[in-house]
């Protein structure tokens, strides 16, 4: 029974399950199935096997020697989720949830995507498992991430354009929820970040925690100690919570970097934790960018993957409990981070973790050479070449 296996629905005051009645049963069913699956060695063995042989885990931990020298401060280590299959951390969660959906007997998967990385990861695992796949994507994002749109189509997914609201990730989630409300009997909604109603934030965090578990073990092995600081970008916050969670009980400073867009003072940004206040959106209580009347504000970021007015509820809890700190990095600074890692180490990052790179380099300069700083590099930058070129005034 559900009561024997149910998972905590809240992180402090945040989280919960604010969903239309039609979807309550599906969330309960998912919670029950996941609570059993996560204690089931057969499920875990299949997941681990695919993470190893299909995704390519463990991903490397790389010591960035040149950047460390340039900064003249802390030793900089990079957790290379860009080297996971499909080029980002999104596959960790997509694979886990797709296996869950198969357990639930649901043959159809829907997903939302912003940058397209979650859409590609979902389309990929659906191709591998033989599941039908539809991906909702804002038309603004379809425009700026056309390469990923084509990848999804090649993988056999249907990409459904969403032309409402700000035509970005938030609106894609609304439309995916509407699909789910209508087709809940046959469909699993494979949410791509640690957001949404309970149990999604817990499920996504658990599947992404492989990042932090590996990084923790690799730091101990390669650096001989834990990092002093771990830095990751935060949109919905799945890669950050995946990196942070295994360090929560360690003396490790945790820093999340949100998208500052044109700058916080401009009002054109996506920094929910830095500049928002608590509310309820997409089924969860969390920090939101909203106006006085509770309407959700449109957001802006150069990076489609961070362009979201909310954030995972566990991050809201980590902020208010002061276990983690959250800062913002604007578009221009993110481009600097992008160029620094590209030229300094020969690693082309996605624009999302470029935010984390910029802040991490600044932080490293303020630390001592015997200290260690860990960056979560959530994905690679191939998808962003057109955006970067345009921002730098280059015509491809």
């Amino acid at each position: 029974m559900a009561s024997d296996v149910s998972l905590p629905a809240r992180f402090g005051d945040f989280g919960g399950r604010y969903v239309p009645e039609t979807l309550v049963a599906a969330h309960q069913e998912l919670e029950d199935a996941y609570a059993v699956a996560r204690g089931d060695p057969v499920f875990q063995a299949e997941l681990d096997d695919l993470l190893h042989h299909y995704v390519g885990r463990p991903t490397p931990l790389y010591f960035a020697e040149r950047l460390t020298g340039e900064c003249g401060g802390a030793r900089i280590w990079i957790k290379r989720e860009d080297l996971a299959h499909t080029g980002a951390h999104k596959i960790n969660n997509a694979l886990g949830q797709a296996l869950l959906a198969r357990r639930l007997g649901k043959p159809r998967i829907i997903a939302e995507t912003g940058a397209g990385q979650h859409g590609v990861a979902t389309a990929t695992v659906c191709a591998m498992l033989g599941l039908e796949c539809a991906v909702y994507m804002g038309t603004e994002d379809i425009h700026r991430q056309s390469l990923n749109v084509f990848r999804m189509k090649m993988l056999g997914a249907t990409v459904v354009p969403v032309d409402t609201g700000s035509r970005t990730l938030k609106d894609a989630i609304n439309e995916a929820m509407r699909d789910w409300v209508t087709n809940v009997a046959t469909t699993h909604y494979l949410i791509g970040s640690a957001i949404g109603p309970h149990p999604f934030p817990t499920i996504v965090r658990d599947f992404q925690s492989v990042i932090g578990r590996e990084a923790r073990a690799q730091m101990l092995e390669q650096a001989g100690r834990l990092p002093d600081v771990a830095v990751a970008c935060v949109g919905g916050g799945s890669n950050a919570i995946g990196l942070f969670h295994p360090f929560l009980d360690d003396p490790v400073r945790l820093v999340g970097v949100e998208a500052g867009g044109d700058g916080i003072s401009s009002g054109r940004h996506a920094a929910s934790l830095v500049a928002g206040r608590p509310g309820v959106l997409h089924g969860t209580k969390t920090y939101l960018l909203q106006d006085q009347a509770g309407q959700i504000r449109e957001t802006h970021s150069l990076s489609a993957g961070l362009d979201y007015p909310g954030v995972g509820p566990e991050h809201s809890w980590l902020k208010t409990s002061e276990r983690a700190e959250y800062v913002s990095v604007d578009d221009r600074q993110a481009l600097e981070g992008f160029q620094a890692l590209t030229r300094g180490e020969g690693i082309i990052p996605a624009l999302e973790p470029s935010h984390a790179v910029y802040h991490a380099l600044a932080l490293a300069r303020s630390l001592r050479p015997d200290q260690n700083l860990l960056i979560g590099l959530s994905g690679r930058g191939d998808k962003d070449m057109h955006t970067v070129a345009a921002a730098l005034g280059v015509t491809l």
Partner: protein
Amino acid sequence: MSERLRQRFADPRPPGEPLFIPYVTAGYPRREDTVPILLAMEEAGAGVIELGVPFSDPLADGATIQHANQVALEQGVTLRDCLAFVREARARGLQAPVLLMGYYNPILALGEARAAAEAAAAGVDGFIVVDLPPEEAASFLAECRANHLSFVPLVAPTTSEQRLPRVAAVADAFLYVVSVAGTTGGHGGVPDALPGFLDMVRRHTSLPLAVGFGISTREHVAAIGRFADAAVIGSAIIAAIDAAGRQRPVERVREFVEDVTGH
């Protein structure tokens, strides 16, 4: 609980004739249309009125009501504006119970206690909050009770029989039964499974049942009357306003409601 709402369901009606509950989004198509629309709905025979509180992310609504929300928000319509509309309609003689229907965040932003107190003072009778299932409703439910407002929970085709007592427990005036799994604005009419489903719901509550979602015509409402106490139409009313190019919306709504109620 709203006494006005309880009394309205208790008032004698011709056998088989359900209460008709029309819906309109506040501020649609223009701010100045809302109060006249509420009054016209009553004159045309509405039993209860649902006034939609606009929200930026109406994820349980189909395209028609999404668009109405967007138009209202472009005019800056807030929850407090909705309360002002009801206050003015009451001052102009509106007698029908009015329920505010919408999403939770605008209520949270105003503050649950303040939202309930100001709603009661404005002459509102209760709330239908689409994304506030009973498990999350405790604090707002308490504020509604303290202000003699009804909290109307939704029941869906996916609601299990084991769960029904929990849903019924938060209701005090009636339960809103969603006829089909989906968003607002369907045209499916009365599903074959509905009578059996309503029977199951009645095993767990003695309160009246209203049916909505997918109901769009006089025939649908008449059919609902055989199984339930009230029928809700929303998207089809917005669509009727749209079909007339948003010209003379008050008259369009009046005609629509008269057609359904036979007034």
